[in-house]
């Protein structure tokens, strides 16, 4: 079946602009995670959804970052007033449910470049 998909694959924007990154999880997966990965580093946790609600948003760096999952499937990560330091690959992952021990299935990521 289809894996996790993310769009766009690449996004170039100017400092101060607003961007939206989309994640389509595997059908039926109730848990969805967002991570940010900078070059040469491991993924950094941002936010985790169980169904429609954000179960843990402790990784969001500041109030410019916001994520939604209104129908418990597709999720959108929104970044306001982008800064050059926001440049990174944004990864989305999903799993059937979150048990704390479950495998996460990752998408290919969206590469965000802020000029």
């Amino acid at each position, binding site marked *: 079946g289809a894996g996790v998909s993310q769009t766009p694959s690449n996004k170039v924007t100017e400092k101060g602009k607003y961007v939206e990154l989309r994640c389509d999880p595997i059908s039926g997966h109730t848990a969805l995670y967002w991570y940010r990965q900078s070059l040469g580093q*491991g993924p950094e*946790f941002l936010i985790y959804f169980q169904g429609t609600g954000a*179960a843990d948003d402790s990784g969001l760096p500041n109030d410019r970052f916001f994520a939604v999952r209104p129908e418990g499937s597709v999720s959108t990560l929104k970044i306001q007033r982008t800064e050059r330091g926001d440049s990174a690959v944004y990864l989305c992952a999903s799993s059937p449910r979150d048990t*704390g*021990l479950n495998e*996460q299935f990752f998408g*290919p990521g969206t590469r965000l470049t802020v000029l």
Partner: protein
Amino acid sequence: EDQVTQSPEALRLQEGESSSLNCSYTVSGLRGLFWYRQDPGKGPEFLFTLYSAGEEKEKERLKATLTKKESFLHITAPKPEDSATYLCAVRSNAGKSTFGDGTTLTVKP
């Protein structure tokens, strides 16, 4: 604060030359330790979950082990297609996942 340190940062092996990758961790209550493989331009791909000290898991040429302070990923007789970045992550009882920065493995034919 949970921490994960992976070593070495990079490892170059000849095809067939076995070796090990290390993942040292400190976590406030370990729920699970995960190993992932990441190829350039792609998202991480799940390999193993280890739950408790003493546990071992194998998959083809890879074997993962876990102690109370570290985990090893042993690679036996690697092939060029094993070249990738290997990531280690811990999940705390509080639910948060923390990744290491990975070991980039290159296997030369």
